[in-house]
């Protein structure tokens, strides 16, 4: 997939400008090919039979009647998987199709390919399948008791006997959130006629898809090529394999192209979710407000299969205290295996759950001490040179915790008076609430997140850059999920090479090496870092080869004279360069969770203003203002877009977004009942950015995608506490939690 160079260029579109998206025009005119838009002559449609039980033995599976359905080309079960029968991002424990047992509601049992979607659905209906339902394990605490855990982490740092005179305890819960990207899972697999297959999918990480596909197909690496197709949002939902392997199996079995598109209900079971969490905390402090000890126990439910649960629980554990100093920290955390839907990556990745709990604890502590909550945070703010409270890692890069908090505090608050327009009140267009019913609350929260991959992972991104007569091509396998990496890559190449005409080419897995996942807020620093490095080296190579002193879009210059025009340079070379960019290495944790586990961090702080109709438990989030530590601003418009969008996902988790499970079954797998915030729910956002350069990455920039989502939820919960005086220990906050709560309950801890 090639993205056209924009029509407006010039170094006015370099680093630091709000350069426009090069894919904007096709996306605005309906001409951008999303994965669901792909078609191929002679193509079949795939469809998936899914378990109606969260836990069951598949006692009979007869595909014969389905094969007899007109139009059905093939039906596949686990017995048709030629290679590895299991796959997975970190551990191959998820069956390609149910392996005699269904372990979650909606688990794929069989796949059908047919002439059209209706035929495929008729084929599904004709499959004869019988289940023996089993008792589902749905309680994460019970799973811990039974040892059903994907990973347990014990962070032990400092003196277990340490204690402080001021103690606050709390128990907190976070519900299961869905990424709900607007574009459902979709893809097209095309047999290459030589036993291999080309698959076009919307994915966050094509190379791990590739590795899992070839293992399950049992073919050589070079027989499968994963091509990026247009991605309708991701937010973590596309890091795991969904339909990729099924598509390739169907294409291999039929020798014909096969397309699959999930509907929304399937999408809700076809990708992983944010882990629901149960968290118990005790903070102990001096009477002056210095944290002495933090003890925590966290249980995150990973659902039926591993996905990225081991890394999510690592983040929850290592960021269990937040951006605060504390010398004695003991965290016991588990991520469990149950018969609930599998959970994995979602924006914020474990840090979201922890932040909700530790920031509630900080507010409790401030209330107990009778001090300003921000003052308490400033007093304990982690800074360069300090040891991270959980892992003991000495912070060496930029970490402007205090500055972020101070700058947020300095931002003006929105107008005091509650709005009078009825749609601006809690309840919105439902007209439930009059101004007299409204209490306004203000709450703050601060968060800390690792950037890029941690715990010793060999994290890299490959980029190739080529000079052509038309300008520059940047080749990468990184996924442009909408966040604007395509623009950032252009801007960096323009600035470093001095050539405004830059096209970004998203290559398939056979053409270039991995860029790593578009996750962990890592692509600006990793792929962006690779673009900066490869362009800088190529520029140097070109100047040395031609004894030049300047390069721009006309060619190579020496002492004010053009010595090699650009089109000649493309012929003469050096015109292409390639490198694999790595960030400084990290350690694997010791048995106490100690070590230099992270390469870089970002701080964000949010202030929420929420109007509450306490009698009805209805809310309107009026404003969420933020200051974020971003290293350097590469594209102000794109950055603001990430911040505003990320905050909205935090709003969703705070006040409405939750997959509701009943015995392992999702009760609201539709956009009718899984509620995403609308225009009418969007708070005003004012954003400020702190620019203290990172120690690695292009122009000092830090990743910025996740922090907006992390502390926004916690800030909104704090504002609701401020308005109601209720403890608010669970998100999303439901109307019952406010309207039916005991009046006058104190937010004081025990």
């Amino acid at each position, binding site marked *: 997939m090639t993205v056209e160079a924009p029509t407006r260029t010039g170094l006015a579109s370099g680093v630091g400008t709000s350069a426009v998206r090069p894919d904007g025009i096709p996306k605005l005119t309906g001409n951008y090919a999303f994965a669901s838009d792909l078609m191929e002559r002679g193509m079949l449609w795939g469809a998936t039979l899914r378990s109606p039980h969260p836990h069951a033995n598949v006692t009979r599976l007869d595909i014969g009647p389905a094969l007899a359905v007109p139009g059905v080309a093939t039906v596949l079960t686990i017995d048709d998987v030629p290679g590895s029968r299991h796959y997975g991002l970190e551990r191959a424990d998820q069956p390609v199709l149910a392996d005699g047992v269904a372990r979650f509601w909606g688990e794929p049992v069989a796949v059908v390919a047919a002439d059209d979607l209706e035929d495929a659905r008729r084929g599904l209906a004709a499959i004869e399948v019988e289940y023996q339902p089993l008792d589902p394990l749905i309680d994460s605490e019970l799973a811990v008791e039974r040892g059903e855990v994907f990973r347990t982490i014990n962070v032990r740092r400092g003196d277990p006997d340490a204690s402080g005179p001021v103690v606050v305890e709390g128990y907190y819960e976070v519900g299961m959130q869905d990424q709900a990207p607007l574009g459902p899972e979709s893809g097209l697999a095309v047999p290459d006629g030589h036993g291999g297959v080309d698959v076009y999918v919307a994915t966050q990480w094509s190379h791990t898809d590739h590795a899992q596909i070839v293992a399950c197909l049992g073919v050589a690496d070079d027989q499968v090529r994963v091509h990026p197709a247009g991605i309708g949002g991701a937010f973590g939902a596309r890091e795991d394999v969904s339909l990729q392997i099924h598509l390739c199996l169907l294409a291999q079995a039929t020798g014909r192209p096969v397309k699959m598109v999930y509907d929304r*209900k399937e999408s809700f079971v076809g990708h992983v979710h944010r882990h629901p969490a149960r968290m118990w905390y005790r903070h102990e402090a001096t009477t002056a407000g210095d944290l002495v000890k933090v003890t925590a126990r966290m249980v995150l439910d990973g659902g039926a299969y591993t996905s990225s649960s081991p890394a999510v629980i690592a983040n929850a554990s290592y960021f269990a205290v937040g951006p605060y100093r504390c010398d004695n920290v003991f965290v016991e955390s588990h991520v469990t295996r149950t018969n609930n839907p599998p959970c994995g990556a979602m924006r914020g990745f474990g840090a979201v759950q922890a932040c909700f709990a530790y920031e509630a604890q900080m507010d409790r502590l401030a209330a107990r001490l009778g001090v300003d909550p921000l003052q308490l945070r400033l007093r304990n703010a982690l800074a360069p040179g300090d040891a991270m409270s959980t892992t003991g890692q000495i912070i060496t890069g930029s970490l402007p915790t205090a500055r972020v908090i101070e700058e947020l505090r300095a931002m003006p608050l929105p107008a005091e008076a509650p709005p009078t327009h009825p749609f601006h009140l809690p*309840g*919105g267009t*439902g*007209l439930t609430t009059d101004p007299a019913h409204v209490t306004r609350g203000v709450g703050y929260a601060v968060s800390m997140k690792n950037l890029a991959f941690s715990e010793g992972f060999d994290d890299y991104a490959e980029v190739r850059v080529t000079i052509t007569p038309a300008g520059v091509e940047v080749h990468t396998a990184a996924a442009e999920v909408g966040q604007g990496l395509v623009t950032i890559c252009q801007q960096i190449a323009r600035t470093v090479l001095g050539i405004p005409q830059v096209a970004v080419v998203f290559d398939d897995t056979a053409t270039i090496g991995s860029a790593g996942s578009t996750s962990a807020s890592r692509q600006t620093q990793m792929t962006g870092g690779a673009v900066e490095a490869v362009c800088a080296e190529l520029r140097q190579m070109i100047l040395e080869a031609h004894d030049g002193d300047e390069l721009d879009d006309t060619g190579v210059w020496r002492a004010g004279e053009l010595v090699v025009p650009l089109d000649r340079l493309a012929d003469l070379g050096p015109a292409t360069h390639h490198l694999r960019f790595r960030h400084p290495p990290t350690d694997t944790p010791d048995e106490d969770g100690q070590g230099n586990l992270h390469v870089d961090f970002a701080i964000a702080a949010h202030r929420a203003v929420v109007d509450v109709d306490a009698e009805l438990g209805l809310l309107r989030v009026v404003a969420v203002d933020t200051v974020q530590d971003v290293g350097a601003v590469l594209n102000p418009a794109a950055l603001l877009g990430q911040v505003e969008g990320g905050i909205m996902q935090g709003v969703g988790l705070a006040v409405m977004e939750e997959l*509701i499970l009943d015995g392992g079954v999702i009760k609201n797998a539709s956009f009718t009942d899984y509620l995403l*915030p609308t225009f009418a*729910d969007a708070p005003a956002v004012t954003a400020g950015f702190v620019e203290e350069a990172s120690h690695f990455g292009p122009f000092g920039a830090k990743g910025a995608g996740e922090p907006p989502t992390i502390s926004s939820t916690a800030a909104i919960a704090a504002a609701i506490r401020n308005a109601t005086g209720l403890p608010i220990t669970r998100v999303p906050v439901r*109307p019952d939690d406010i309207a039916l709560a005991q009046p006058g309950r104190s937010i004081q801890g025990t």
Partner: protein
Amino acid sequence: MDCEHPHHLDAALAALGDDPAATVLAGGTDVMVDLSFGQPHPVHVIALRRVVESAEWQEGRIGAGVTYRRLERGPPGALAQASRTVGSPQIRNTGTIGGNVATASPAGDTLPVIAACDAAIEVASRDGGVRVVSWADFFTGVKQTSLRPGELVTAIVFPDPMPAHHEFAKIGVRNAMVISMVSACVTRSEDGTTRVALGSVAPTPLRATAAEEMISAETNPGESALTEFSRLVSAAVRPITDHRGTESYRRHASGVLARRLLERCLRREPR
């Protein structure tokens, strides 16, 4: 399957008379969702969008084909307020009050207004002519009505004039485009006669008659009367717990919402 597009009511009634099992599409916004959710495909569709008579709106008689979009921009009051809360702008461009009535979902947004105003449902068939059915006789259960085979909803007949005051509100967790957890309509006449109807708290729209009788007798209700009104409304509803809300919240919110709407009726100028 085939699809008919009658342009006049008699043609629509004739088509339905020939095949009383046909699927009738008004705006289609409910039926299409069922289709997407794998409901059996209809064999025979009669699409009413072009039936000119059904779009007529004269005083209190609102043709079944009048869209929410027209209603929300119509005379201010409960029906406009309720229509504004239906789905999204696009759905309101297409969806109709007749469809809302015929679908008879417990969460149908206009239903509490119809019930509180004691509106009637006008139905017609080729063979049976026109019947006017009280709302209470029309709604018989969750998505169940007393509509007979071959009958179409042709109009909703509101009293003319309307009560002096009528107010609607609806609770959903989201501030727009949401299915109601509780909805309510309160009307009050100059003589104090008060009606209160609630949606999403019973299989059909529900009138809290004890609350009505109590508060209708109060010419200038004070705090204790308002509190009692609220309590009686909460006692009257029969909600369930489902994924959209709990029984206890719906019961609580019914009383709160009814009281607030009554207070608005008392506070505001007559409509």
